[in-house]
């Protein structure tokens, strides 16, 4: 009933996705690209939650929790690689 109006908010998120992709492709240094990919991950997690409410499907939202943890793992691994030039074991 009240869920249909969620569709009006989707284009704003898509515009933001396009701008983050531009920065991720163009970014002059490695940390810029990692930062843009972090933001892409957060937009994707928000998208998953919004779609699971919009489509009324509880299966989709389980991916969002795992995605939030993977973004943190990407940050930790990239900072370790930048400082030590290795990924560790």
């Amino acid at each position, binding site marked *: 009933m009240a*869920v249909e109006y969620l569709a009006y908010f989707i284009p704003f998120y898509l515009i933001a996705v396009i701008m983050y992709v531009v920065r991720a492709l163009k970014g002059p240094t490695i940390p810029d690209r990692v930062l843009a990919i972090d933001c892409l991950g*957060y937009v994707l997690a928000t998208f998953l939650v919004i779609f699971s409410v919009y489509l009324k499907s*509880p299966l989709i939202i389980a991916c969002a929790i795992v995605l939030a943890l993977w973004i943190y793992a990407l940050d*930790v691994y990239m900072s370790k690689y*930048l400082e030590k030039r290795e990924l560790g074991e």
Partner: protein
Amino acid sequence: MSSMDLNLILTIISYILIGIGAFCQVVAGIGMNRFPNFFVRLHASTICAIGGSFVPIIGCSILALTLEEFGPSRFFLAGAGFVTAIFIVLLAPVGSHLLAKAAYFSKAAVLHPKVADLLEEDIKKGEVRESTV
């Protein structure tokens, strides 16, 4: 107050939160393209994580709580949404800090339009050693 009124109020609050999230995402996207270097772009990343991701996920969870025709699995939707929001609000600043520290000390990001770099002056004066920061 009847249950119908409470549902209407919660729906309006959740749509306001999702609207704030959409606005913050667009602002963060513009900032990500317009800011000059990496350390200023961290600001846009924070707007994206907290204003653009934490706030609308809370809004979606509140919206899922009001869907009474959806049955008991609406509590699963709302709970998983709250857990995701708490993960994001705890882990996004930690990740940004780690990345900024690594980018500063490995000199991977150039600080081109440089206004002030107080940490570099402190390291030069010997007040802060580079290995302990």
